[in-house]
C-alpha cells in the first residue's frame, strides 16, 4: 500500500504534467489517517501507546499502517511516555505517545513533567470526546489541555480534522527545536473521524511568535573568551545542553584548546567520555569531591547548557561567589535565573562553542588541574575504595557497577531509576558514547527506568541497554514487563535490592535520628515475577557469583532480570547536605 502522501505526490506529478498551472488535487481522508501520515512524514519509527474509546479511530486507521509505523503496546500510559522519553534520550529524536482521553491522558502527566524539566522532545497525541460533548462531563472527558499546560512546552486541542497536518507539523517543530520539550495534541473523536480534503504534509520550519535560538551576540563571545584567557583557575560545568545541541565534538575541542577542567551534571553525563582527561567528575549533592569544593575556589566558572539546579548548587548564597560566571544557554530565561551571570552567551552551543574556542589561547593550567587530582585522591581513599572494593560481607552497589563496567567496557546505555542506585550508577558507571546515560534528573521520577529502558532500546537497537533499578522504583512500573514479554525486546534489568527505600532511609539515618518511617519495603520474588512474564532471571547475594551472573545477563539472548542483594544500610557519599554550601561536602 502507498501512503496517502505518496498518492498525493503521484497525483501531483500527473496533474503537473497535464495541467502545469494547477496545483495538486487533494485526497479525501479521515483525520486519523492524516495523523498517521504526519508521523510517517516526520520519520517516526516507534509509537508507544495504549488504546481507548476516544482514540479508537486513530487505532482503527493504525490497523492498516502496521507495516509502516511501529506501535508498541505498553501496559500503562505512564510506561508509554517514559518509554518515549527513553527513546528520545537514547536516539536524539522525538518520542511519540498515543493515549486515550480522561485517565489515559492524566496518566501521562508525570512523564510530561519529567520531560519538561529534563528538556526531552516528546509529542503526545491524546484522544478526546466529541467536540459537542466538551465541558459536559462526558464519559472519560477531562480537561487535558488545562491539566497539562504547566508541564508542556506547547499544547493544542484539535476539533476539526483540517487542522491536523499543520498542527502536527507545528508540534514536531516545537518539541524538537530550541530547548526541546514535550508537546501534547488533544484530538476530539469527531476530528479523528471527519473526512477532509487532504493536500499533503508540509514540515513546519518557522512560527512567527517562536524563536528557538536566540541570536548570538559576538561581543559577549569576545568578553567570555577574554575572561577565560585571563583566568588562572577556570572551571567548566556542563549539562544536557551539550548533548541536546549535538555539540559533543565542539565541546571537547573547547576544553582541549585551553586545558579546561570540566565537571558534568547528572544530565550532562556522557557528553564527553567519562575517562576524558579533562573530565573531573560529577557535580552536585552526590557528585565528586573536587568539583564541588573547587566550585568555590575557581575564578571563572563557565556553565554550558545547564540550569543551576539546587541539587547542583547547594546553598545559593554561598555558591561560587568568588567567581565570574559565564553562562552559555539556548534559553534566555535561564540566564540569571538562579545564579547571577557576568557574561551571558545566548545561543545554540553548537554555534557558540566554536566561536569561543577560536578566541581561546592555548593554556596549560596544570597546577589547577592538579588540585582536582589531589581532591580525587582523597575521595578515592575515603569514599571510592570502600565502595568499589569493600571489605564488608554484603555486596555494595558500587562494586556491582564496577563489575558491570568491566564487562560492558563503557559501551552500554545505562538507564537508571531514582534513588541511591541512581547516584551510585552515575558516580561509577563508565561511558564512552554520548546519550548513554538515561535517567530522570530534574523530576526524580521513581518508576522511570524500566519503561525508559524499553524505549532506549528502540532508540538505539544496536546498543546493549541495562536498566539499573532499585527494589522500590521497579515496583512502581513493573507492569511494563508485559511490554517486554509481548515485544520480545532485549533489555537487561539489574535490580539492586537493599530492602529499603534507600535514599530516604539514608536521610532518616543522617538527619532524623534513624527514625525509619515507612522506608522498610518488602518486595515480591522478582525472579518469579519475571518468570511469569516469560523473562529469565536470577537472584544473587554472594560476591563470588557477581561477575558470572552479570556476564550471564549480558550474554543472554533477549531480556534478562538479575536481582542483586546488596548491603541494607549503605549510604551514598560524598554528600552535600541540603541547605549547605558545595564546599561543605561530607566524605562520610
Amino acid at each position: 500500500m502507498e501512503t496517502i502522501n505518496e498518492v498525493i505526490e503521484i497525483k501531483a506529478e500527473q496533474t503537473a504534467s497535464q495541467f502545469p498551472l494547477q496545483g495538486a488535487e487533494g485526497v479525501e481522508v479521515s483525520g486519523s489517517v492524516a495523523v498517521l501520515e504526519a508521523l510517517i512524514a516526520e520519520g517516526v519509527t516507534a509509537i508507544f501507546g495504549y488504546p481507548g474509546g476516544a482514540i479508537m479511530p486513530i487505532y482503527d486507521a493504525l490497523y492498516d499502517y502496521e507495516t509502516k509505523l511501529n506501535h508498541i503496546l505498553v501496559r500503562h500510559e505512564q510506561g508509554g511516555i517514559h518509554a518515549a522519553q527513553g527513546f528520545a534520550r537514547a536516539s536524539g529524536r522525538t518520542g511519540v505517545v498515543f493515549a486515550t482521553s480522561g485517565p489515559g491522558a492524566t496518566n501521562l502527566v508525570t512523564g510530561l513533567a519529567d520531560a519538561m524539566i529534563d528538556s526531552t522532545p516528546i509529542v503526545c497525541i491524546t484522544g478526546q470526546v466529541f467536540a459537542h460533548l466538551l465541558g459536559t462531563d462526558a464519559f472519560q472527558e477531562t480537561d487535558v489541555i488545562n491539566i497539562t499546560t504547566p508541564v508542556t512546552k506547547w499544547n493544542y486541542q484539535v476539533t476539526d480534522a483540517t487542522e491536523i497536518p499543520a498542527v502536527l507539523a507545528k508540534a514536531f517543530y516545537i518539541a524538537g527545536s530550541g530547548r526541546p520539550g514535550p508537546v501534547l495534541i488533544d484530538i476530539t473523536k469527531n476530528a479523528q473521524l471527519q473526512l477532509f480534503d487532504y493536500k499533503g504534509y508540509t514540515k513546519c520550519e518557522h512560527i512567527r511568535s517562536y524563536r528557538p535560538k536566540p541570536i548570538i551576540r559576538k561581543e559577549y563571545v569576545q568578553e567570555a573568551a577574554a575572561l577565560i584567557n585571563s583566568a588562572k583557575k577556570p572551571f567548566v560545568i556542563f549539562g544536557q545542553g551539550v548533548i541536546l545541541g549535538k555539540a559533543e565534538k565542539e565541546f571537547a575541542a573547547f576544553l582541549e584548546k585551553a586545558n579546561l577542567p570540566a565537571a558534568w551534571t547528572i544530565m550532562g553525563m556522557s557528553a564527553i567520555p567519562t575517562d576524558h582527561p579533562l573530565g573531573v567528575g560529577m557535580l552536585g549533592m552526590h557528585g565528586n569531591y573536587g568539583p564541588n569544593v573547587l566550585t568555590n575556589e575557581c575564578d571563572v566558572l563557565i556553565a554550558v547548557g545547564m540550569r543551576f539546579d539546587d541539587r547542583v548548587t547547594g546553598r545559593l548564597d554561598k555558591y561560587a561567589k568568588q567567581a565570574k560566571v559565564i553562562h552559555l544557554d539556548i534559553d534566555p530565561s535561564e540566564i540569571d535565573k538562579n545564579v547571577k551571570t557576568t557574561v551571558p552567551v545566548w545561543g545554540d552551543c553548537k554555534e557558540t562553542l566554536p566561536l569561543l574556542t577560536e578566541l581561546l589561547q592555548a593554556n596549560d593550567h596544570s597546577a589547577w588541574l592538579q588540585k582536582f587530582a589531589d581532591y580525587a585522591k582523597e575521595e578515592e581513599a575515603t569514599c571510592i575504595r570502600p565502595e568499589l572494593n569493600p571489605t564488608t560481607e554484603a555486596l555494595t552497589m558500587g562494586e556491582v557497577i564496577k563489575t558491570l563496567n568491566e564487562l560492558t567496557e563503557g559501551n552500554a546505555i545505562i538507564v537508571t531509576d531514582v534513588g541511591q542506585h541512581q547516584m551510585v550508577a552515575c558516580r561509577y558507571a563508565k561511558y564512552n558514547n554520548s546519550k548513554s546515560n538515561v535517567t530522570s534528573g530534574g523530576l526524580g521520577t521513581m518508576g522511570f527506568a524500566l519503561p525508559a529502558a524499553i524505549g532506549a532500546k528502540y532508540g538505539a537497537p544496536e546498543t546493549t541497554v541495562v536498566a539499573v533499578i532499585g527494589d522500590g522504583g521497579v515496583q512502581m512500573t513493573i507492569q511494563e514487563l508485559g511490554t517486554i514479554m509481548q515485544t520480545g525486546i532485549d533489555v537487561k534489568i539489574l535490580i539492586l535490592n537493599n530492602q529499603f527505600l534507600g535514599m530516604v532511609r539514608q536521610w532518616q539515618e543522617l538527619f532524623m535520628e534513624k527514625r525509619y518511617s515507612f522506608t522498610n519495603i518488602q518486595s515480591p520474588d522478582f525472579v518469579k515475577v519475571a518468570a511469569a512474564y516469560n523473562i529469565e532471571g536470577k537472584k544473587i547475594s554472594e560476591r563470588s557469583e557477581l561477575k558470572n551472573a552479570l556476564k550471564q545477563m549480558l550474554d543472554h539472548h533477549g531480556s534478562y532480570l538479575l536481582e542483586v542483594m546488596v548491603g541494607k544500610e549503605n549510604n551514598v557519599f560524598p554528600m552535600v547536605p541540603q541547605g549547605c554550601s558545595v564546599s561543605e561536602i561530607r566524605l562520610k
Partner: protein
Amino acid sequence: MNKEEYTITVYTENQIGLLNRIAIIFSRRKINIDSLNTSPTEVESVHRFTIVINETEDVVRKLCRQIEKQVDVLKAFYNTEDEVVWQEMGLYKVPTDEVAEKVKVERLLRQYGARAVVIRKDYTVFETTGHREETDGLIKALEPYGLIEFVRSARIAVIKDSSGFHEKLKSYESSAPGDELIENEFLNQQEEIFTM
C-alpha cells in the same frame, strides 16, 4: 531591591488557552496579579495583555522571560509607572434622589471629571477615568451619599517610548530574523527594552 508597581505588556497570538499559560506563570510563583486586561492591538491578529503587579525588578524581569518563552507569545515588556501612560475606569452607582438633592455631589463629580452614563428614577451611574487615586478618591467622596455599587476596570497602558508593533512583526514573520530582533536579547538592559 524594593517592590514597585510594574506594568507588563505582552504581545501575543490570539490563541485559546494562552491566558491560562500566562496566568500560571504568576500563580506558580505565588505572585498576585493586581490587574489584567486583554485587548486587540493596532496590528490585526496580534493581541495584547496588560498586567500590573507589585514586585522587585529582578522578579519582574524573570517573569517576562518566562512569559516570552511561551510559544504563542511574541514579546513581553515591563515598565515602571512613569514609563507608561495609563488609565483605569470606574463605574459608580448611587441613588438618584440623593444626587439630585445634594448640590455638593455634583461639584464633587465635576472635580473628579466624572459623567453620568445612566440616569434613572431610582439610581444613577457615573463613570470616571483616571489614575488609581482619582477613581479611589471618588469612592470616598460618594460613600456618604449611599454608593450602591462600584467597579473598576483593569488598567490599560501605552508605553511612552514605543513606536508600535507593525515593524517588529515584520521581522518576526521572516524566517531569518533581522536586526530588529536582536534587541530582544537585551531583556536585562532596561534602556534597550523601550527602543521598539
